[in-house]
C-alpha cells in the first residue's frame, strides 16, 4: 500500500498493488517494471512494514506469500 503522494505521482492514484516477489529487492524491481521510477523512489526514501515490522533500509528481507506490505516515510526522532 502506498501513501497518497506516491500513488498520485506514480500510479495514477492506485494505493493498493499486487505483485509477485520473494524479497524487497524483487518487489521494488517489479514495481519499477509496472510504474517506472516507483521502485527506485521507494528504495531510496522509504521504509517498509512487512507484516507489521518496520524496516528502515530494506533490501534483502523476505516477503511471505501472504505478507502485508506498507511503504512508509522513514522514521527518525529527537
Amino acid at each position, binding site marked *: 500500500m502506498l501513501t*497518497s*503522494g506516491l500513488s498520485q505521482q506514480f500510479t495514477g492514484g492506485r494505493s493498493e498493488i499486487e505483485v509477485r516477489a520473494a524479497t524487497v529487492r524483487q518487489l521494488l524491481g517489479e514495481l519499477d517494471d509496472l510504474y517506472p521510477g516507483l521502485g527506485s523512489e521507494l528504495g531510496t526514501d522509504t521504509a517498509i512494514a512487512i507484516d507489521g*515490522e518496520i524496516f*528502515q533500509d530494506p533490501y534483502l528481507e523476505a516477503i511471505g506469500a501472504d505478507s502485508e506490505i506498507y511503504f512508509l*516515510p*522513514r522514521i527518525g*526522532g*529527537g
Partner: protein
Amino acid sequence: MTTNGNGSTQGNGLKWVGKRTIRPDGVDKVTGRAQFGADFTLPGMIVGQVLRSPHAHANIRSIKTDKAEALPGVKAVVTSADFPELPSTFEAAGEVMLNFRDMSCNVLARKKVLYHGHAVAAVAATSVAVADQALALIEVDYEILPHVIDVIEAMAPDAPLLHDDMFTIGVEPTPDKPSNIAKRVEYGLGDIEAGFKAADVVVEREFTTKAVHQGYIEPHAAVATASEDGQCHIWCSTQGQFVVRAYVSKLLGLEISQLRVTPSEIGGGFGGKTVVYLEPLALALSLKCHRPVKMVMSREEVFQASGPTSGAHVWVKVGATKDGRITAAEAVLKYQAGAVQGSPIMPGCMCAFAPYDLENVKVVGFDVVSNRPKVAAYRAPGAPISEFGVECVIDEVANKIGMDAIAFREKNAAREGTHAAYGPRFGPVGYTETLRVAKEHPHYHAPLGPNQGRGVASGFWFNIGGDSSAALHINEDGTATVISGCPDIGGSRASLVIMAAEILGIDVDRVRPIIADTSSIGYSFLTGGSRVTFATGMAVIQAAEDVVRQLRERAAMIWEIDVEAVVWENGEARPSGSNAGEFDPLSLGDIAAKAGKTGGPINGHASLNAQGAGPAFGTHICDVEVDKETGRVTVLRYTAVQDAGKAIHPSYVEGQIQGGAVQGIGWALNEEYIYDEKGRLENAGFLDYRIPVASDMPMIDAVIVEVPNPKHPFGVRGVGEVPLCPPMAAVANAVAAATGLRMADLPISPPKLLEAIDNGL
C-alpha cells in the same frame, strides 16, 4: 517504580539488567571534569563569530567584507560564496528528508535572508572583541521584503512568498504557481463519511500550538581545524558525530575521509543537535586560515537561529457511539517548517490516532514555510502536536457520552494485531497495560479540592533501530572497555555497560564505556529516535557474544578439549559436563592473562542495521489547580506510565519519562516564540522564554510498565520520545476539568486563561 504487564514487580534471572547501577559518567559530570563543547581548546586557537540578519525577510543585494578582512587580528571571513552551490537533492536524515541546498542556505544565507537571526557571514579573529568589531565592518545591502510568521497566514494565496521555486508536492495536478506550502500528505483507512454517520456523538475542534525550543542547557559549540594537507577535525556538541561528518563534508565539498569528528560531552539535545549550524562555519574559516577556530552560540543565537519544533494549526474531529466505540476520526494538520521545507508533518500525521483501533480514519497534513528558523527535531518530532489535539478531543468525547476517560481509551485502544491508523499491524504493544496501570494508580482515585482538576492523555511513538557499531575490548587484567559511536545523552553509557556485563557475566564496574570519534569506530547513526539502548545495545550484545565465543575457544585451547565442551557461566569458562574433563573454572581475568599465548588480544566487534524496534505508548495523569484571580495553573501531581519493554537501567528510564513530562508541561503552560510586527524574535532568552524549573514542578511519578519487545534480546523499547506526547493534552484536560473551559490555544498562559475565565469562554 517498575511493574510488568500483570502489575507485579518484574523478576528475572538477570544479574545486571534492570539494576540501578552507578552511572559511569556521573563523577565527571558532578565534579566539572566532563568536557562539553565550549570547554575544548587547541594550541593557536582563534574564535569565530557570526553576523546575523536583523530582518525577517530580505534580499541580499551585496555583502562587502574587505574592511573586516583588513582589520588587524582578523584571520578569515566567510560568506555563502565560500560554500559550494549544491543541487536541490533530498537525502534521508532522521525523521525528515534533508535537502542539502536548503541546509547550506540555512547555515549561511544565499541571496536571501529568511528569518531574524539568519547567518549571513562569519569571522575568525584572535579575540571575541576583534571578531565582533569585524562583524560591524561587514556591509550588507538588504532589500527588505514583506514577511510572514503564522502558519495559516503563510498558506494564504497572497502571503509573502519565501521561495519562488516551491510548488506544493502531493497535490494533483501540481500547482503552476509557487506557494509557501511545500507538501500535502494524507493517510487514511476505511470510509470516513460513513464512520461519522454511524456516530451518536461528534466533537470537532481547532487547536494551535506554538513553536517551542528544546531548551537544552548547553548552547551549540564547535572547534574545527584544517591542516594544510586538507585533513580536518571537528570537536563539537552533537547527537551524532557521523552525521556531522556527513553533513559538513557535503556542505564543504570534502571527501568523508578528510574529516574526523569527535563528540564532546553533551548538555542536552532532544533532537536539536541532530543538525549542523556552527560546525561548517568553523571548518570553512579554518580551511581559509589554517588555525583552529572555536565557535560558541550565545543563548540569544540559540533561540534565534537553531531549530525549535513546529508551531501548528490542528483541526480534529472524532465521532463515537453512545456505548463508547469510536466510529470515525479525522484531522487536518498544518505545521510550520521554518524558513525551508521539512517540518515533521509526516510523523505528526502518522502518530495522531496511532493509540486507537479505528476502522475509519483520515489525516491530512501540510508542510508550510514561514519566516522563522528552520525547525529541528524535538522528542517524537511532530507527534506531540497532533496527539495534543486528538487527546483533547478524545477527552471531550468521553465526557459527552459520560464515560470514564481511561475506560473510553481502553475500549478503543490499539493492541497486538490492530492496524495502526498509518497502516501496518502492531506487534506486541503495551498500550492497554499503561491504561490499566494508570487506572489502578492511587493518583487516579485521589480526591481533588476546589478549583482543581484531573486530566488524562496518552501518547505513541514508533521508535527506531538503524545502523550501529560497537566494540568490546578485553583488557589484560580481565576488565573490559565498551566502545560505541553514539553520544550519551540519556544514559546510554550505563545501559550499554550493563548489557555487556550481563553477557560477559562480570561485575558491571569492571566494564568502562568510551564514545569514539568517527575514525575510531564503525559508522553509527545518531543518538535520536530512542534508538541507542535498543540498536547500539544490540551491537554491544553481539560484540559481547563474539567475545564469549573467543573466551570459550581460548579455554578449550588451554584445556585441550573441544570448544563445544566449554560453557561460559557467571563470568567463567567451565567444562560443559563430567565427560568434558575435570578442570578448574577459568575466569575472564585468567583467560585474558594468557591471551598472548593463546592467539593474541581478545576483542569483539559488531556492526548492524537494527530492525524490530518496538513501538511505545504512555499514559499520563495530571492534577492542576487554577487560580481564578490570576489565571495561573499549578501542576499539583503528575503520574506518567510508560511501556519500556524492559528497563535496562530503571533510573534512566524514569529520568527520560520525567524530563519529557516536564518539557511537555512547559509546552502546555508557558513556552512560545514571540515575534514583533517586523518579524523579530522578542524573547530570545530564558528570562522571557519561560521553561519550567524544579520549583514549578511536583515530583513526576514515573511508572515503568514492561511488555517486552520480542525483537530485542532483553526486550528493550525506546523510551525517550513518548514522554513528550501526552503532557500537553493531560494538562489541558486537567484545566478543562478544573474550569469547564477548553483551552485550545497553547500555551495556557495566565493572561490567556484569565481572559477566558473572565469571558466565560
